[in-house]
C-alpha cells in the first residue's frame, strides 16, 4: 500500500538501530526493486521472464524471501529503466551486503531453511511481539527447558544433535544482551506457566528465570490467567516482528510441525495485530504478571 506520509524511520520507542542483518537488507532490496518495477509499470511476469524466473520467484524476491544473483539484479534494473549509474550502484551495493553470511550458518546442518529465515528476521527486529499457548518463548528458555522442548520435537535424534539444537536456541538469546536489544513483548497463556516441561525441577528454574527476565528493561511479559476465560487467540501461538525501516512491513510468523508460515500482507498482519492487541488488553499488566509468576512458583 502506498503511503503519502514522508518516509522516515518508525518512531517506535524501541532501539534506534538494529544490526544490518542480511535478511533485512534483502527485504529492503526487495522493497526497492518492487517500487522500481511498479514505477516502470512492468508486471512481475514480465520481470520474471527477463531473468528466466517465474512470477512467484519475483514475488518471493521482492519480499526478501530469496536472494538474487547480482547479474539478475543488473538485468532487472535495466528492464526497469534505471540507467543512472549512482542509483544502480546503490542497489547493487545493497545486494552485495545482503549476501554476507550470518552467525547461524555454522548450524546449517540442523537448520531447515524456514527457520533460518526466522532467525534473520528475529535478529533484525526492533520489536518482537509473541503469543504463546504452550511453551515459554524461545528467547526466555533456560538450557534445560530448551533441551526438554527439543527432545519433544526430535525424539530419535542422537544426543550430539540435540545438544547443537539446544546451543542454537540459547545462542539466539544473545540478541537480548546486545547493545540495542529488541523490545520483546510476550503474552503467555497460563498453561505456559503450569505445564512442567522437562519435569518439576526444570520448570521451577525456568519460572524463576522468567520472573527475573520479566523485569529486564525492554522485556514485557503478560500472562493470561485461566480465570479470564476464553481469550482472543483461537489461533495458537504466533509472533509478530517489527522492523525499524519504514519500508518493511511487520511479519507474522507461525511455526508448524515441518514448516513455518510467514504473513506480510497488510490485511493478514493487521488481523494478527488486532488479536494481539486484544490479548494484551485482556492479559495481566507486566507488573501483575511478575506477581502471578511468583504465585505459580509458590504453588508448584
Amino acid at each position, binding site marked *: 500500500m502506498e503511503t503519502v506520509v514522508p518516509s522516515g524511520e518508525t518512531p517506535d520507542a524501541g532501539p534506534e538501530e538494529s544490526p544490518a542483518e542480511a535478511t533485512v537488507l534483502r527485504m529492503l532490496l526487495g522493497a526497492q526493486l518492487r517500487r522500481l518495477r511498479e514505477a516502470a509499470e512492468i508486471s512481475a511476469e514480465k520481470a520474471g521472464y527477463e531473468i528466466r524466473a517465474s512470477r512467484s520467484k519475483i514475488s518471493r524476491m521482492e519480499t526478501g524471501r530469496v536472494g538474487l544473483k547480482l547479474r539478475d539484479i543488473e538485468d532487472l534494473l535495466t528492464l526497469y529503466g534505471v540507467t543512472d549509474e549512482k542509483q544502480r550502484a546503490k542497489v547493487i551495493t545493497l545486494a552485495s551486503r545482503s549476501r554476507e553470511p550470518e552467525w547461524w550458518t555454522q548450524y546449517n546442518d540442523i537448520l531447515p531453511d524456514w527457520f533460518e529465515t526466522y532467525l534473520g528476521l528475529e535478529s533484525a527486529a526492533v520489536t518482537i511481539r509473541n503469543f504463546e499457548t504452550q511453551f515459554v518463548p524461545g528467547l526466555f528458555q533456560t538450557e534445560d527447558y530448551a533441551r526438554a522442548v527439543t527432545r519433544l520435537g526430535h525424539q530419535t535424534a542422537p544426543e550430539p544433535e540435540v545438544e547443537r539444537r539446544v546451543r542454537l536456541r540459547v545462542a539466539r538469546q544473545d540478541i537480548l544482551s546486545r547493545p540495542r536489544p529488541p523490545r520483546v513483548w510476550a503474552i503467555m497463556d497460563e498453561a505456559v506457566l503450569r505445564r512442567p516441561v522437562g519435569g518439576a525441577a526444570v520448570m521451577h528454574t525456568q519460572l524463576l528465570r522468567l520472573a527475573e527476565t520479566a523485569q529486564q528493561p525492554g522485556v514485557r511479559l503478560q500472562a493470561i490467567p485461566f480465570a479470564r476465560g476464553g481469550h482472543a487467540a483461537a489461533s495458537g501461538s504466533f509472533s509478530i516482528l517489527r522492523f525499524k525501516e519504514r519500508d518493511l512491513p511487520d511479519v507474522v510468523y507461525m511455526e508448524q510441525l515441518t514448516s513455518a508460515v510467514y504473513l506480510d500482507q*497488510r490485511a493478514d498482519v493487521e488481523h494478527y495485530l488486532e488479536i494481539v492487541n*486484544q490479548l494484551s488488553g485482556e492479559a495481566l499488566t507486566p507488573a501483575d504478571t511478575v506477581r502471578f509468576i511468583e504465585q505459580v512458583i509458590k504453588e508448584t
Partner: protein
Amino acid sequence: MTSNEAPGTDDSASKVGSLPFDVTKAHQARSYDYLLGGKDNFAADRAAVDEQIKIYPDLVFTMRANRAFLGRAVRYLVGEVGIRQFLDIGTGIPTAGNTHEVAQALAPETRVVYVDYDPIVLAHARALLDSSDSGATEYIDADLRDTGTILAQAANLLDFTKPVAVTLLSILHAITDADDPYSIVATLLDAVPSGSYLAISHAGPESFTAEAREKLMDSTRRTSLQQYTLRTREQVARFFDGTDLVEPGLVPVEEWRPDPGARAEGKSVYWCAVGKKR
C-alpha cells in the same frame, strides 16, 4: 464555526465510555500513529488520513508539530517550573518521547497518570508505559467526559494538594459543544490547586477555506469514528479561564517556545497554550 459543523449524529461516538475496537472506521489514536510514521494503524485509518492529507497537505506537519509541542511543554513544566505530577488525557499510542519519558529524564521522581478510551491505546499503554524506578506511571481507561472516574482513579497516584499539570493535547476538538468541553476542563482545573498548569492543543478553523473545511468535515463524517469540532483562537482561549498564560501565550503549536534554531517546515492548524492556575 462550532458544533454546527460537527454532525454529532453518531450515537456510538457520543456515548460516554471506551471506544469499540473497530478496524472498519478510522480512530484518532491510530490515525495519529500513522501520521507520526508508526505501524500500529489499520487500512481504514490510512485511507482516512490519506484522503485528509489531499485536502490539507500540512496535516503531517501539524501532527508532528503537536508532538514536538508536547515535548517542549513537558520539558518546560518539569525543567523550568518544577512540576512533578502530570495528568495526561488523550495519551494516544505510545511512541518516542512519551510524557513520562520526557519528564522522568529530567526528574525521575515525576508521576504521570495517562488517560485514554481507545482499546488499542489500552493494549499498548498497559504494557509499555511503565515507570522509571523512582517515578510512577499509571494508566486509566476512561473517557474524557467521565471526569469523576478520571479524578477518582488519578488520586491513587497523584497528590491533588500539590500542583499538577493537566495536559489535553489534540483531544478537546473530539468533544462536541453538546458535551460542554468548557465545563469538563473547568472540572479538571477545580480539582487541582493554585499553581497547577493546563496545557492544551486544539485544531482551529482559521487556516482553512470554507470549502476545505467542508471537505474535511465531510471526509471525517464518512471515514472516522470520532467527529471533530474546530474552535477559533478565541474559543480555545476560553478554556484557559482562571489561568494566566505563560509566554508566548496562545499561538500555533510550532510557535510555542520553539527550540533555538528550529525552523517550521509548514503551517499547523493547531492552537496551543500553557496556563498557570491562579
